[in-house]
């Protein structure tokens, strides 16, 4: 059976259990040769939250992001999405289950229109072009790109391309959306619009995990922050508490006496 058509009816046959965490990571390890990129990473992501994944350079954020998205399986540990072990599932299979991601460097199909780019996403839920187009238009409206629907993706400005990444991911109708540095390089006013969009995504009931460097944007936005350092979870909690954790401050600003 075509998995896309199976997903077309909603609610899904196994309605998600909303009381459980949407995502559970248990003892995740990742190694590249001798380098330990992630170690003992364990945390839950409650449904309906915006979670920030932060940490200094080399903390293992991108590696962990890839493990959640299905880009690469961990050498050890378990990724459970809505109660189901997805550790060994590839990215397309996870997309079908309801996990979507964006890329830090936008991966638009530049010779195609903005609408067609988003339809690439909506075709994962709709087999008929008309239905896929309708769904894509709705997403374009939601993301504020409707006025650019006919434009060639290659002609978009960099902030619009970021938005297109988000739109295409949303068109796959995810319940978990992974955002990889969508705020980087935006002007303050563009970033404010981005923040507003992410809040509206959350308000639709979509859980959001974001890897972000732009701390003055990400910290006020997220419900919870996970701080990684040297591949491990250093701290987690409400942003207000995390930024006051001496271990977090030392990880960012350095403190050789404490670190030694």
């Amino acid at each position: 059976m075509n998995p896309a058509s199976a997903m077309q009816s909603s609610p899904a046959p196994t309605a998600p259990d909303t009381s459980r965490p949407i995502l559970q990571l248990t003892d995740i390890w990742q190694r590249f040769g001798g380098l330990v990129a992630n170690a003992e990473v364990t945390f839950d992501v409650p449904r309906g939250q915006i979670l920030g994944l932060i940490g200094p350079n080399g903390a293992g954020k991108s590696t962990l992001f890839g493990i959640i998205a299905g880009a690469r399986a961990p050498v050890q540990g378990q990724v459970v999405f809505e109660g189901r072990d997805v550790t060994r599932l590839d990215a397309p299979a996870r997309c079908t289950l309801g996990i979507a991601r964006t890329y830090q460097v936008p991966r638009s199909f530049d010779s195609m229109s903005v609408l067609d780019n988003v339809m690439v996403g909506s075709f994962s839920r709709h087999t008929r072009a008309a239905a896929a187009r309708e769904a894509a238009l709705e997403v374009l409206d939601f993301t504020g790109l409707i006025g650019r629907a006919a434009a060639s993706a290659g002609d978009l400005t960099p902030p619009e391309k970021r938005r297109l990444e988000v739109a295409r991911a949303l068109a796959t109708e995810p319940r978990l959306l992974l955002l990889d540095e969508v705020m980087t390089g935006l002007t303050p006013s563009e970033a404010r619009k981005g923040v507003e969009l992410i809040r509206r995504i959350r308000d639709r009931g979509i859980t959001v995990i974001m890897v972000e460097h732009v701390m003055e944007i990400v910290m006020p936005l997220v419900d919870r922050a996970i701080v990684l350092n040297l591949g491990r979870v250093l701290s987690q909690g409400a942003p207000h508490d995390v930024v006051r954790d001496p271990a977090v401050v030392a990880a960012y600003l350095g403190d050789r006496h404490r670190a030694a």
Partner: protein
Amino acid sequence: MLLEVSNLTTAYNGLIAISDISMNVAEGEIVVVAGANGAGKSTLLKSIAGMERPQSGSVRFDGTPIGAMPAHQIPQRGLAYVPENRRLFPRLSVADNLRLGSYLYRKQADREAPLEQVFTLFPRLKERLPQRAETLSGGEQQMLAIGRALMTRPRLLMLDEPSQGIMPKLVDEIFEAVKTIRAGGVTVLLVEQRLVESLEIADRAYVLQTGRVMLSGTAAQISADPDVRRAYLGM
């Protein structure tokens, strides 16, 4: 001022990495540019070194505008740049890497003159001269990169995150070397994420956040400023 950066803005494909940055370095200073990842520290150095073309703003070195100068002509004016990840010639020996640093002086009998100073700073380089650069440890590679830069006989040495990916003990050694280099008459502009350690050796600091200068002042002022945490952690 030896280095004057005015209203510098650099973007990558329309995405702004640094915005309207003004900063300066006086002869004989150690100045730190700090900030969390993504703050624009490396872009600032690249824009000064001619490795990136700023969109607007100016860079003056010893009074001369160098903003439009090709990167390879900048070292001969006395500005040396040690990039992030060192960018050594991995398959060349330590000796050859150092020798390439003195390329500007290739026609001179005293081409290798700064070598003695480099070996005094980093004695272990002398022990490893015939070895390929790629066989050195991370800290030793950093020493070699700094040594190679010193072979260009700079007046201003710019270092991009020399502490990255190396053992704490070697970080101390490198920071000690930076002090010695300055004592020898070379001005230093140091980019570091690890602010606490770098303030111990610096005269002044600039703290960047998302491509802008958020704080600047003497090392003592910055050490005591509670806004530093906000610059790094956003709140």
